[in-house]
Structure formats: structure tokens, C-alpha cells
């Protein structure tokens, strides 16, 4: 499978103090799409994952957790139908 467009440029080695991955909102393709609960792609073309946005801090740090594709699909459907 070819990597999709990456919504949030991130390095998936990075972990915050709670063990979640993190990136910066300034590195989002569309910062308006990066909101709590959103399911997006994060990483780089070589090293990426579906993720769920957990929190966005006032300094622009975005905290997220990695998802399997099935989880990502299910959560996206639930969010659309909510």
C-alpha cells in the first residue's frame, strides 16, 4: 500500500510524559482538521500510522495515539454518525 497524504508531519519515535506520541500543530497540512478525537494520518512517508488526536496544548504540541486501520475506520464512522 502506498502511504497516503500525511495530515500531520510527525516523528513516531517521539513520546510525551504519558507515553503518547506528539507533534506540532504547525506541521499539520490543515491545522483546522487537527482537533481532539479526530482520526488522521501522522508521520512521514516511510514511517506513519493512523492516529487519534488526544489533546492539543496552547503551545501547539499535539498528543496522539496510534491506531490500527480497522480501529481508525470504526472510529471515523462513529464520529461521522454522531
Amino acid at each position, binding site marked *: 500500500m502506498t502511504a497516503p497524504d500525511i495530515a500531520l508531519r510527525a516523528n*513516531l*519515535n*517521539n513520546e510525551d*510524559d504519558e507515553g503518547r506520541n506528539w507533534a506540532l500543530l504547525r506541521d499539520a497540512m490543515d491545522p483546522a482538521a487537527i482537533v481532539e478525537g479526530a482520526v488522521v494520518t501522522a508521520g512521514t512517508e516511510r*514511517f506513519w500510522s*493512523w492516529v487519534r488526536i488526544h489533546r492539543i496544548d496552547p503551545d501547539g504540541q499535539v498528543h496522539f495515539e*496510534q491506531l490500527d486501520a480497522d480501529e481508525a475506520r470504526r472510529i471515523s464512522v462513529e464520529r461521522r454518525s454522531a
Partner: protein
Amino acid sequence: MDQPRKKRRARRGEPLPEGGILVVRGDLLDPDELESDARDNFDVYGFYGISVYAEVGGVDVDWIAGHKLRRAEWLVLFEVRHVLGAGLDLWDTGLSPHYDVVHADVVELVTRLVGCQHRLLRNVHYEEGGS
């Protein structure tokens, strides 16, 4: 406009891992990406740091590869002694087994880390991001 204050990074206060312990970073070593990551880390936490994982607390490279880095097709393995021998620091940041490789100068950080003796390994637990 006021700039947000830097966050205080949590340190675990553990002793430095022994020299033969392996340190792992997911993906290929790309100097530009390493520098960008270190600068991002500075913007949030106030120090230049590059995230890695170490074989501490009962986990080994195989566990790290399958749990922390399964989306990385490639892994870079260093030994603690080579990282420290290059004049870099290893900070026990966040939750075990996460660490930051640290230096006060971002260019030195990247140059020294890339120059450290290391091995490149294909991740046998690799799961492509869309799976």
C-alpha cells in the same frame, strides 16, 4: 506577543544504562529529519533532544520493535557506550523505555549521533501504516 513557556520534561531519575545496553531509533538516520525533530523538541521542552528507546526495565529490542516501533520498517541500533563516548547525553525522559539523546548544540547533536557506530536492522515486526 508572549511566547508560551517551555514545558518541564519529566525525568525518571534512573541510573544511566550500562554501556552494552542497546538504544533503538525507528526509521533510517536522516540528518535533516533528526535536526528538525531536535528543534521541535527544543520548542516544546527547551532542550535539543532526539527520541530513542533503550533495553531497560525488562524490555529488549524485540519488544521495542513490536510495541513502540512496529510502523518503522527500519531500526537503527546503537550501544549506550558509543552514544556517551561521542559526547552525547542520554536522558531518561517520559516513560520507560523512552530516552532522549541530548546535546546543547543541535548541529553537534545530529553530527555526533549520525557518526556513532550503529547497525541498521529490518524490523521483523513491521506493520505498514495502513494495516
